[in-house]
């Protein structure tokens, strides 16, 4: 702060409400710890120091859905789990977002044809905002998915109906 100290008079920043609120929201997306299968290990890797999801303000993994904004569905969803996912999603406070991480959560993945208990895509249970390809996706892919979600939040409107979405 030394560079800016005593350089400026008191200032007024003008912006619009949407931008400000969206900026607040997208900079502090709290995900829920919700690892299901293999992708969960990559999600843990993203949380750790090498990839560091904290850079995007999304590092505060919450154990309770009531404190979370984002559900990263990391792994295969089967029928037994689907009902629980629905309930957990319903417990999250709005605005809430969901990322389908990996091929299984997107559309059944390798278990599409013969997986008799596998739900062919978590979007049959909860609405999904961002799909990430890969089996499992690399940590960078998850970070890109998060950035896409941030773009989507930035484009949304708080007081109006959204004009365009990403």
């Amino acid at each position, binding site marked *: 702060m030394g560079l800016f100290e005593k350089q400026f008079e008191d200032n007024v920043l003008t912006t619009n409400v949407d931008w400000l609120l969206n900026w607040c929201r997208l900079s502090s997306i709290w995900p829920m710890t919700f690892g299901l299968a293999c992708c969960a290990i990559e999600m*843990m890797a993203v949380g750790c120091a090498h990839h560091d999801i904290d850079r995007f303000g999304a590092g505060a993994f919450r154990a309770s859905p009531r404190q979370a904004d984002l559900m990263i569905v990391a792994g295969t969803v089967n029928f037994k789990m689907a009902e629980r996912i629905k309930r957990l999603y319903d417990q999250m406070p709005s605005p809430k977002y969901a990322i389908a991480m990996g091929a299984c959560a997107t559309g059944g993945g390798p278990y599409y044809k013969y*997986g008799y208990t596998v739900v062919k895509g978590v979007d049959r249970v909860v609405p999904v905002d961002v799909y990430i390809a890969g089996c499992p996706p690399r940590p960078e892919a998850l970070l890109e998915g998060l950035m896409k979600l941030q773009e989507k939040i930035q484009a949304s409107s708080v007081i109006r109906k959204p004009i365009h979405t990403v």
Partner: protein
Amino acid sequence: MSTTKTYEPSISRTEGRPLAGGEREYMIDVRTQDMEVNMGPQHPATHGVMRVLVRADGELITGAQPHLGYLHRCAEKIGESVEWLQYLPYTDRYDYLAAMNNNLGYSMAVEKLMGIEIPRRAMMLRTLCAELNRIGSHLIAIGTYGLDIGAFTPFLYMFREREWMMALFEKICGARLTYSYIRIGGVFNDAPPGWLSEVEAFCDTFEVKWREYYDLLIQNHIFVKRTADIGVITREMALDFGLTGPMLRGSAIDWDLRRDTPYELYDEICKDKAFEIPLASGEKGTLGDCWDRAWVRAMEMMESIKIVRWCLDKIEPGPVIGDIPKTLRIPPGEAYVGIENPRGELGHYVVSDGGKIAVRCRVRGPSFVNLAVLEELMPGALLADTIAIIGSTDIVVGETDR
């Protein structure tokens, strides 16, 4: 969520839990109502999506019932629906922390039916990768165990080494987690130039870092207090439930498939006395407690480094895969191969009728068998110890449910 019901407690209230030195901690005349507490399926400390229905009398657990199946992915049905080689990627996905070991187990079972020889360099690379993956798996096992019971920092440190290990695997096969590197008849391709020296550099660093983890976590006073004397598995219990791997060695039963039913190159490695089998001794408390199991895992990482070094020392140029056709027709027969996975005996029972598709592809997941002991371990423990006990079994839910 909890429901209150009245149950006959399965242990008497005056029995309490055992302490070190043969004493017991008594809890007399605490009149409480039995309560059922659901742990999971979404719970950060159940290592995936497992649900444990804990019945507690105040702080004292009177019964626990694991509920599985939240990640049932029909691996065995797929095994008898797709071709032999096509099934290999699915083996990556049941124990996703030790995918190399799964590839190895499945390949060995099919090779046993085919009765083929594996090139020596391929066997070296297989052993090397399996042991490297064992290190990676144990790093997660211990790291998340620390995380579960409140030590966050070692987890971050251990992921640093794991990232390095995954980078090594990425160089050799192109994937970070699901490798499909070990194929039927050998390995997918040769190590890229300079890869072996990178592995050596990893070993050098890891030996230094391992000491750090050992002092920071395993010998940490708080860690010892949380895990010693908790969840004691006796010798009889271990055999009765068919436990294998570190769970068995944590109860001082001297058994390791690598040494006792040698496969691949472990025969030679044992002859050279290149590695030892760490056995728990009940150093910090009762023999067979949670700390012993964590200790066994920590020591095994160092033994794996020794095996990796042995392979680096002995590896010679040569072919890495035999002449294997794209569509395999396996001679009729049935074979069971058990190998030492980081979690215990990973068995593959394959049946062929001479066709392109298996008749049966059974996976004996060590986590599935090891987890069954939970029902026996929990009663008598305190509610806070639930996490310590579940963590010490080191399950991978992909494998318990398959």
